């Protein structure tokens, strides 16, 4: 609620009509911005302007706009999800900008996430990685009483830290190599930390890593850019745990 002076910015956004079309950066002036506006609300206003002028609005994805669904994802002035630390771009507010700023807005540019249109990309590779083993194979109705399996509180908290992943793909985008390690590592970690995930640990690690490789994600070079941008502050310790799970499974399981 601080500051109520309205201002103007120039948005330079990536426009690309379709997956196979060439794209380019296009500049737009956006006026009458309130500092209390979210960044995506500013884009909404720009889009409404474009629409009224009979132009095609900029395609970008968002849904919950409270930082949990993982739909949104933009590179703002070179920052993945914008300049705020550990935040999604829907939580970025215009009070971070000032009058006359030129703001570049670009899509996730990662081999594993092909651009669909403008700022929207295809992140289905992440689902396929989960389908390779990011689950516990218990049929509905087969479980014993929930309190029959105690879980050390610290472990449960650590599992929750990993499970907080929203699947936005920022880790892949921020990675100099476009690796999907933080995403995959978080899921493998969550289930490795919980006794419930125990019986399938080896199988899961081997098959999820194989699926990740198949999707064309890059290699991890341990630069930890992913950790620096992750909106949910997921730690690279999860990548180490995935490495451990994978190597132990490879060396000591029967698979």
């Amino acid at each position: 609620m601080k500051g109520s002076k309205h201002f103007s910015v120039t948005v330079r956004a990536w426009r690309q009509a379709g997956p196979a079309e060439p794209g380019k950066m296009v500049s737009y002036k956006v006026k009458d911005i309130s500092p209390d506006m979210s960044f995506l609300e500013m884009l909404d206003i720009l889009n409404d302007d474009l629409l009224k002028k009979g132009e095609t609005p900029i395609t970008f994805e968002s849904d919950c706009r409270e930082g949990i669904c993982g739909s949104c994802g933009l590179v703002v002035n070179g920052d993945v999800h914008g300049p705020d630390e550990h935040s999604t771009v829907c939580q970025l507010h215009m009070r971070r900008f000032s009058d006359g700023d030129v703001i570049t807005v670009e899509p996730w540019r990662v081999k594993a996430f092909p651009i669909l249109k403008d700022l929207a990309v295809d992140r289905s590779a992440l689902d396929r990685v989960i389908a390779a083993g990011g689950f516990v194979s218990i049929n509905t109705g087969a479980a014993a009483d929930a309190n029959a399996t105690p879980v050390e509180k610290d472990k449960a908290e650590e599992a929750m830290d990993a499970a907080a992943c929203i699947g936005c793909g920022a880790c892949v985008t921020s990675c100099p190599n476009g690796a999907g390690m933080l995403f995959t590592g978080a899921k493998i970690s969550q289930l490795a930390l919980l006794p419930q995930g125990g019986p399938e640990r080896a199988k899961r690690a081997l098959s999820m890593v194989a699926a990740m490789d198949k999707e064309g994600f890059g290699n991890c070079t341990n630069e930890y850019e992913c950790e620096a941008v992750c909106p949910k502050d997921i730690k690279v310790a999860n990548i180490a745990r995935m490495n451990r799970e994978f190597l132990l499974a490879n060396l000591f399981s029967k698979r």
Partner: protein
Amino acid sequence: MEITFIKRFITTSIGRKAVMAVSGLLLGGFMLVHLAENLLLFKGEAAYNGWVDMLLSNPVTPLLELGLLFLFLAHIITGAWVRVEDFLNAPSGYEARKWQGGRTIGSATMLYTAAAVLAYLAYHMLTFRFTDHSMGFYQMVTYAFRDPVFVAVYVAGSAALALHLSHGMQSAFQTLGVNHPKYTPLIKIGGILVAVAMTGFALISVYYLLGIDIKAAQAGYNVVIIR
């Protein structure tokens, strides 16, 4: 025979990196031993040449050399594979792109420092290993260290190696899955210390460059120096 697991060390992203990490750690260990050997220079000609003679007369040494060659090849091949693949696949086309704090100079330059270290290694092998050793190893080394160009190459090479290890040591532990809130900070400090130690190679050469040894100067250089 089950060989899938061996294949995985070559074909999967994490397997390849593990090979790179293990070979890197062992090579790092070798570099520390090698540095200790170099420190023998300060104990004088007898001590240094005695150690070298012991090595050369030991029947295990060729095997160790072979092992070392294997480590180098494993590290270079897996490293190159990882890096070239990443280079080809790296996200590109950004008009603006910032790094958000994870990257270090060491981590961002791994490919370049690797190339520099490889060149340094080749130079080192040609000048000291595949050459005429008749004047004695101590003489050969200390004479070489009086050539400013040679020392410059050495300083540059050691710096590249230090930079390489500043990222490489802790990175290897992470790749092998060793990450723990208690130990990781120590590993990171240890890695930096090992990296800093690599400048020892340069410091020794600089020591001899700056030292005044008339006898050696009069004798002139009798090693082949590739410039």
